[in-house]
């Protein structure tokens, strides 16, 4: 091996070692507020198994641990298999609760998150009927990134049946007017506030998250909390959405805000690993 190539390999290897050393999940926090167990959940994630994500279902579970989440829903596109795989892995090897689910990409046009279901829901039906199917399975129906273009699919019947709507989604940081459109959609009906990262592996999971005020840390308690709209979401600029009484409680607790707000990637080992990794990889290509 030539010297420059060897040097590039060493830089890459050292960067990988630094990043791996820094890759430790935070110590799990048990947060109890107002008699509820507050759980940080991300209800919209995609894996690479039959969905267009960049991480495997088990990779999503490990990444959720790393991001300090208590639960995630793995929501394949019109598909439940990856959620089931993720749940089996989590039950065997993780503290994270995995709720199987799907993102229904429909015809006519709407994107609907179904969480806590056992069978896939048909996509060639109205949103109201799809929500009825979800409820028949004791699941939760959440409008995914409800931009104005999706609104026509959510008629009065659908709005009346919806359990929640995403009010915090990475789109609010990327697309002008998205936050306002989500707020206007949520104002049409008393839906629960939901924050989801729609994680495809191109940004941090839990970047937008939902705090569910649950009776205990279990799948059933999370679904009950979502059904009762006992949720709080920290949005852009720290604005808080959700049940007004719970919003007041959440506002007074710095732990929730600190974990929910996006952070700069500042750790020294993190910086070394990513900058060194890029330099090392470039060196391996060039030399």
């Amino acid at each position, binding site marked *: 091996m030539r010297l420059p190539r060897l040097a590039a390999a060493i830089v890459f290897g050292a960067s990988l070692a630094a990043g*791996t050393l820094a890759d430790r999940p935070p110590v799990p926090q048990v947060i109890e507020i107002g008699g509820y167990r507050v759980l940080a959940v991300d209800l919209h994630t995609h894996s690479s198994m*039959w969905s267009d994500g*960049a991480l495997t279902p088990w990779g999503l579970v490990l990444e959720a641990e790393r991001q300090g989440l208590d639960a995630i829903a793995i929501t394949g596109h019109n598909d439940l298999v990856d959620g089931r795989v993720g749940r089996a892995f989590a039950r065997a090897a993780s503290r994270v609760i995995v709720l199987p689910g799907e993102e229904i990409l429909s015809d006519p046009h709407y994107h609907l998150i179904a969480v806590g279901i056992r069978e896939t829901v048909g996509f060639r039906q109205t949103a109201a009927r799809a929500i009825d199917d979800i409820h028949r399975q004791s699941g939760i129906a959440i409008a995914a990134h409800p931009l104005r273009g999706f609104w026509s699919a959510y008629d009065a019947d659908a709005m009346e049946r919806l359990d929640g709507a995403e009010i915090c989604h990475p789109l609010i940081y990327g*697309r002008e007017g998205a936050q306002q459109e989500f707020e206007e959609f949520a104002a049409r009906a008393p839906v629960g506030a939901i924050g989801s990262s729609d994680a495809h592996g191109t940004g941090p999971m839990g970047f937008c998250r939902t705090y569910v005020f649950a009776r205990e840390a279990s799948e059933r308690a999370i679904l009950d909390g979502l059904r009762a709209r006992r949720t709080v979401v920290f949005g852009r600029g720290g604005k808080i959405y959700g049940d007004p009484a719970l919003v007041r409680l959440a506002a007074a607790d710095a732990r929730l805000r600190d974990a929910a707000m996006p952070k700069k990637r500042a750790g020294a080992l993190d910086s070394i690993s990513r900058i060194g990794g890029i330099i090392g*990889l470039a060196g391996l*290509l060039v030399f």
Partner: protein
Amino acid sequence: MRHLSSDARALVSPAAAFRELALTPGDGVYIFARRPLALLMAIGSTVSILADGRLTARLVVDGAISFAFIPLFEIAALAVVVRRMPRRVPFAHAVDLLFAANGPWIVWMLALSALASALAPQDLPRWTATPRMWIVAAATALAIGWLVRLEFHVFRDAFERSRAQAARDVLLQRALAWSAGTLYFFGFALWPILVGVLR
């Protein structure tokens, strides 16, 4: 130029680089696997930096598993294409030559990783919406064009095909590999779109 790797030489002077690579034939598992694995390492590294802002073994391996379908489909498509060629080349060597043309993708991934490294998490989504999305799209189009040019030289200069044959080989290779990859990656999400189009 002599101090550069053959992959880097292929980026700037593909005809000469692939003629030279063709003169050093090899066979066996190492030759077959070395460049596909290097591509997977680059993909895994990019996934790791994008997903978590750091290079970690956990995410590099996970990203590589997630995108293992890319080299698999490329190798399968190559197997179809080389069967149409009169000149017999050890398949491991053919795979090695084809994957030496992946430099543009690696440059593209390095640029993406550098961009993600420089941004705070909340600034990343801006690059998935207009107008910045067009910069990413233009860079992707550039990488695809560059890749196709390099692959043309793989078939033209390493496999000694005529210009027309080389063009057809690239077209077939890409049509097979990218169609299968797209179908696999977008999977069930394509179904409602197809239904919508066919109605």
